[in-house]
């Protein structure tokens, strides 16, 4: 039987997301889905879920949940969020069995804007147009099309027999989620011809900073002037994930998970999907650079990253509930009580 997760507290912008709402782009329907697909997949794959299972997308606002009735296997990953089980700090990416008396909390850490909490089997909220992904602007998906709040109860679907594999709590060794300030790869087009070669040169030569105008729909950056060679009011065409629009203010607006499927500003290029997760993890005030690559290079990078993430299950190391200095430090820092069970090893069958 599937378990339930009860929400005790959810910061603004915490939503249910799955692989996204597909098949309705032509009707103006936003695909939604996770902001950082790499972290979302990592959490799901650690539980043996597929890459479409609904999970909780935790924003910098944080989250506090507990397990109702029966124990529930969950996994989390993304950014450097600080996760605690009943006060005890856990690794930033891990798979654990949450017991009914335990409280799991997430708080934004030293970097990152989104983390994912997945449950074995996936959360079973009512699908709308084939997806559980929340799109708040149109009020569909998740729970009543809104962000989560205290009192929400999220049922987990019954997992397939044996899908999780081994029965041990684990650290997820996911180096692809480490902080990486390397430039974001960009494939030029389809309207790069709206900009002079000098302007395009500037775009790749200088750093940009993420402004506070950043949400699930788009990230607005500020940096050098990206002037249009001619007008900026083009006849609308399609919009793909990571499109770098340059509207009238000549500053990049990068379209993210909640983008509209069509739009009318020139698109200089697209951030490679392999780098979308890293971009999603930027916080306002942080800066970044861009590097031009061919579509073929972006494709190779994407396939390589997907292959790596697909092996998440082979990168689980038993989570030993030993006190590390880091955890002691964290525990002391918050003045929390250290669980006496914490020094006990959990069963690892490696």
């Amino acid at each position, binding site marked *: 039987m599937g378990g339930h997760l009860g929400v005790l507290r959810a910061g603004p912008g915490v939503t249910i997301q799955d692989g996204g709402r*597909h*098949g*309705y*782009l*032509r*009707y*103006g*329907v*936003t695909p939604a889905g996770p902001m950082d697909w790499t972290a979302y997949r990592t959490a799901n794959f650690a539980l043996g879920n597929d890459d479409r299972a609904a999970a909780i997308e935790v924003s910098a606002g944080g989250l506090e949940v507990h397990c109702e009735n029966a124990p529930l296997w969950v996994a989390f990953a993304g950014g450097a969020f600080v996760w605690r089980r009943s006060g005890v700090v856990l690794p930033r990416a891990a798979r654990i069995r949450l017991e009914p008396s335990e409280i799991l909390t997430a708080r934004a850490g030293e970097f990152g804007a989104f983390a994912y909490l997945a449950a074995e089997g996936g959360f079973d909220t009512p699908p*709308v*147009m084939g997806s559980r992904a929340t799109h708040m*602007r*149109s*009020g*569909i998906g998740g729970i009543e099309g809104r962000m989560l709040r205290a009192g929400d109860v999220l049922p987990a679907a019954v997992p397939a027999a044996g899908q999780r594999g081994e029965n041990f709590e684990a650290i997820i060794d996911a180096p692809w989620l480490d902080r990486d300030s390397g430039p974001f790869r960009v*494939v*030029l*087009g*389809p309207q790069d011809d709206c900009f002079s070669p000098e302007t395009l040169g500037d775009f790749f030569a200088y750093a940009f900073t993420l402004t506070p105008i950043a949400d699930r729909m788009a990230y607005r950056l500020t940096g050098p002037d990206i002037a249009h060679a001619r007008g900026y009011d*083009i*006849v*609308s*065409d*399609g*919009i*793909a*994930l*990571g*499109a770098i629009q340059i509207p009238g203010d000549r500053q990049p607006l990068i379209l993210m998970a909640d983008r*509209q*499927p*069509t*739009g009318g500003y020139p*698109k200089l*290029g*697209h*951030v*490679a*999907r392999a780098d979308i997760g890293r971009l999603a993890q930027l916080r306002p005030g942080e800066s970044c650079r861009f590097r031009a690559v061919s*579509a*073929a290079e*972006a*494709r190779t990078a*994407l*396939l390589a990253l*997907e292959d790596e993430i697909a092996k998440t299950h082979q990168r689980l190391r038993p989570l030993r509930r030993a006190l590390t200095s880091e955890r002691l430090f964290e525990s002391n820092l918050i003045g929390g009580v250290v669980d006496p069970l914490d020094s006990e090893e959990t069963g690892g069958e490696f």
Partner: protein
Amino acid sequence: MLPKPLYLAAGESALVVEFGATIDPNIHDCVLALDAAVQRANIDGVTETVPTYRSLMIHFEPRRVSAETLIAALASLDATAKPERTRVHRWHIPACYDPPHDEDITEVAAFLNMPRAKIIDLHQGARYRVYMYGFAPGFIFLGGLPPELTIPRRAVPRAPAPPGSLLIAAGQALIASCAMPTGWYAIGRTPVKVFDPKRTQIFLAGIGDEICFERIDGDTFDALSLAAEAGEFCVRRENIDER
């Protein structure tokens, strides 16, 4: 045979097939013909297509198909496919231009220096083509607005216009599916729900379909609103096979 389009990358997972840069029924016909051909051909790795005014966006799964393979497959489609005359519907949509549903008509009348009745006659008498959806689920972008009704977008968006608002700006017309702040002008309103996720048929018109408006009074609007709320379509649909 379709004119040769431009193939433009939109990242590594989408391709833009562009037939032009303007709003033109002939360009749109090419977009729709290619869309129909792509759907029929069932090309491996293609996940979704989005027809717009001037291009077809093809979303694909890079693991299953590369852009080069996809372009080769599309080029062979172009060589064999005639502009396809797919079945087109004409939708008769009730429209109310009486207060309080004509919120911005006074502003439009002042800007265009045109009597209110003339604006209504022009808007209601035209035949429109569904060019694309966008902005939000179910927002229908229409071409075919009489040129006399051309008015620039507002410099500052107005407060949200209610669902079903009939909007005009920049020489185009739009049917709104939900309340959104907008730079357009609301001159009337339909009780029809053009988007209802609770219905089996979530959306009404297909891209390329025709739309005309049939004038109703305020009482009819209220009655039809109740019926639409209960899940009725409240529209008349005609089949027009050839365009």
